[in-house]
């Protein structure tokens, strides 16, 4: 499990590699919570790049839903980049399709914030 944090202008990009399953999800939760805290009430614009995530369980889903909820509270937004078939079907099953915008290129994802 590896998470790389990048900033492009006001946009925070997390490149995630590995399975978002079980204890692995805690690392992601901590990084996201940190970013929200550092924003100090300002809106956060975040891209979760899931290109290298093969599998996600309900804990992983829980982390990104929680991120969505708290980031929205300050008028920020979380979007998903490069999700594969597994994770797409997980999001569909959980009826979260309408909640998460999904993009296939980083440029599109960044543009969506402006």
């Amino acid at each position: 499990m590896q998470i790389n944090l990048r900033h492009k202008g006001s946009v925070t990009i997390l490149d995630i590699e590995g399975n978002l399953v079980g204890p692995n999800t805690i690392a992601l939760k901590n990084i996201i919570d940190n970013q929200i805290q550092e924003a100090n009430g300002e809106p956060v614009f975040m891209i979760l790049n899931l290109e290298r995530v093969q599998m996600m369980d309900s804990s992983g889903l829980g982390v990104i839903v929680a991120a969505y909820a708290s980031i929205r509270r300050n008028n920020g937004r979380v979007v998903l980049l490069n999700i594969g078939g597994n994770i797409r079907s997980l999001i569909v099953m959980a009826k979260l399709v309408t909640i998460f915008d999904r993009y296939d290129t980083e440029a599109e994802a960044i543009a969506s914030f402006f």
Partner: protein
Amino acid sequence: MGEKTQLRIFLSLPSTMQLIYLLDTVISDILREMNFDEETQEHVNLAVIEAGTNAIKHGNKEDTNKTATFEFLIEDDKLTIVVTDEGSGFQREDVANPLEPENLLKSSGRGLFLMEACMDEVIYEAEGTIVKMVKYKQSPNL
């Protein structure tokens, strides 16, 4: 009488989430060996991880002196998985539906739902300390 192949694999783990990856590799191997199609492999894999997580976290409360057990019964036409914990159980009907609008943004409560969505049968026994799940080679409802 019953010359069908039936292989029983049994795994017992101390209750720490640190070992959930072991469960992951075991079920992945079994699913590959059984030649389930890739989507089914992902579904069963997810269901087993959810059931294992519940047994370790909710059932055994991550007490490493308590064990979560996993029985995999491989038959020609189906895979049966029985997960047990040493906890005090729960009532399925007390668990809120994660698809209800007021629950959609909750960060938890999707495990049982995903298990039931991913498997052909999910049966809770002994107050929910035993979860029995079945996946057929040819899904009966397809």
